[in-house]
């Protein structure tokens, strides 16, 4: 993650995210990365921090999103991944847990639910006929209920679960998850599913970068104007 620091799947995502938006990707930069990420997928179907580790929502998102950027999602067993992530939505709370047998947490509204748009896209590219054209493969309304009813701090901001205190991290990811749950697809296929009053509707977020889709487009277009920097020490 930084010089002399920890090595795990998050750094692959950070690097891929930054490099792709700023147009500095070269084949050498990510040589072997996709294969390494694929090794982080384990028997549970999810992805761990490093190969051999327990499947975890945060790491799984980072791994899958990085592979989407690198266009190598097919290296994963998408079926077992889908099985794992859909099993993480809690039938009582409606929110998601980070790992099997753990408690629900608002931030996984993004890390876990955010996987379904990515999976949808990957499976669609394979021509899977069973895919819905209106909904993600998780209970979008139930997740919205959990976030809106349980994760809001009366003084403003959002949180992990009732009883916890608010912080920026949970505010960010609860809102991101809410946006994912409210918006299916884009363009012609866009389908809004909003719980409660229309004013609850948030702007859509880009499922790979988690910033507004327009911002992704603008960033990419801006940096395409510049050539990919070379590594020569001239």
């Amino acid at each position: 993650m930084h010089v002399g620091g920890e090595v795990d799947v998050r750094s692959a995502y950070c690097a891929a995210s930054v490099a792709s938006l700023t147009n500095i990707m070269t084949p050498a930069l990510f040589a072997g990365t996709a294969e390494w990420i694929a090794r982080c997928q384990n028997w549970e179907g999810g992805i761990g921090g490093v190969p051999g580790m327990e499947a975890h929502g945060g790491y799984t998102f980072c791994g899958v999103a990085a592979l989407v950027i690198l266009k190598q999602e097919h290296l994963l067993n998408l079926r077992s991944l889908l099985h794992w992530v859909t099993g993480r939505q809690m039938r009582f709370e409606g929110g998601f847990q980070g790992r099997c047998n753990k408690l629900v947490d608002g931030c996984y509204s993004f890390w876990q639910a955010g996987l379904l748009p990515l999976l949808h896209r990957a499976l669609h590219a394979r021509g899977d006929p069973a895919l819905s054209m209106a909904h993600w493969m998780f209970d979008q309304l139930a997740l919205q209920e959990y976030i809106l009813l349980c994760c809001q701090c009366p003084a403003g901001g959002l949180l992990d679960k009732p009883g916890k205190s608010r912080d920026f991290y949970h505010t960010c990811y609860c809102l991101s998850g809410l946006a994912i749950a409210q918006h299916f697809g884009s363009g012609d296929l866009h389908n809004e599913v909003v719980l409660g009053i229309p004013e609850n509707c948030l702007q859509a977020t880009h499922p790979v970068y988690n910033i507004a889709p327009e911002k992704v487009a603008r960033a990419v277009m801006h940096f395409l104007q510049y050539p990919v920097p070379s590594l020569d020490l001239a």
Partner: protein
Amino acid sequence: DEIGLIPCPEARYNRSPIVLVENKLGVESWCVKFLLPYVHNKLLLYRQRKQWLNKDELIDITCTLLLLNPDFTTAWNVRKELILSGTLNPLKDLHLGKLALTKFPKSPETWIHRRWVLQQLIQENSLPSLATKGNLGAAPVERIHRLVQEEMNVCSEAAGRYPSNYNAWSHRIWVLQHLAKLTVKVLLDELSSTKCWVSMHVSDHSGFHYRQFLLNSLIHRTVTDNNTLVQNQMVNEQNPSLRKEEESAETEATCAEEQSVDLPSRLDEEMELCSELIDNYPGHETLWCHSDESLNNSHRSPAASHMAQAMDVDGLNESSSKQGYTQETKRLKRAPVQDSLGPEMEYRFVDKVLSTCRDVDQARFATAYRKWLVTFLGQ
């Protein structure tokens, strides 16, 4: 051997806030808001080169800081510098980390620093000419072994202090991979020493995942060694004049020892443990997941490899992925001995659970498991 914060909002008496009882260190909470900013500031001034601190002061300050907030990366990095310059014994940091973990069992930075320290120690180990600063005497292999055992203890303690402690268990796996090199002995030792722990922490998915890791590593170990054995045999058959006597004899000896790991019975034991825990503690999803995967493994294990040795190496590799093939050869191999935990046994177990359980979650898990059995064994 343990630190903690004593809730004490006001300084009532004019005395030190440090309390030491039976080797346990306590700090009264009122002083933290004075102490922490003070030491924090001192360290930052040093880093900004505005105020000099000598080595001993640095050691003391970082120690205090890290016991109050072990996720303060800069403090750990100062200690890294001290270790690299030879002023600080790396073992001290292992002890400091262990202490910090008694209060902050998840602290990511503590675990990360710990791995850095261990890497330094391994490198040191491979250069016997270096003065070992107090580690003199023990042979390298024994030193590593002691380090590994200590790490297992630290992980175990931390795992007990926080449920499903991802960082503690990943560290444990890291130590086995990088210090203990995943030998069969250490894998088996860990399987037996964690058996009791997981039985007392039946919802700890990380704990059970660790056992899956151990079992998978054992399977992988056996497959690799068998591959080497088969390859050596093939080489020997094709080029008798090029036979490397020593090499093949050694590999065969190792394989003989490792083939004495009765994988099928290990996997059976795991299934038995699962069934027992599922019966005793209804409604824990972790146990059912573990059961699924253990059954999966016992059908994919290289028990079939004995049969496959007669075949070419490619056949051996394929057997672990073609479930039908492995099941068949497994049945062939075990024909004279009755399967202690075959599929019929699993059906009976699940049906028994379904008919006797009263826990809603347990019933749901059992039903799902039954459906999975039908799909899985139906192939």
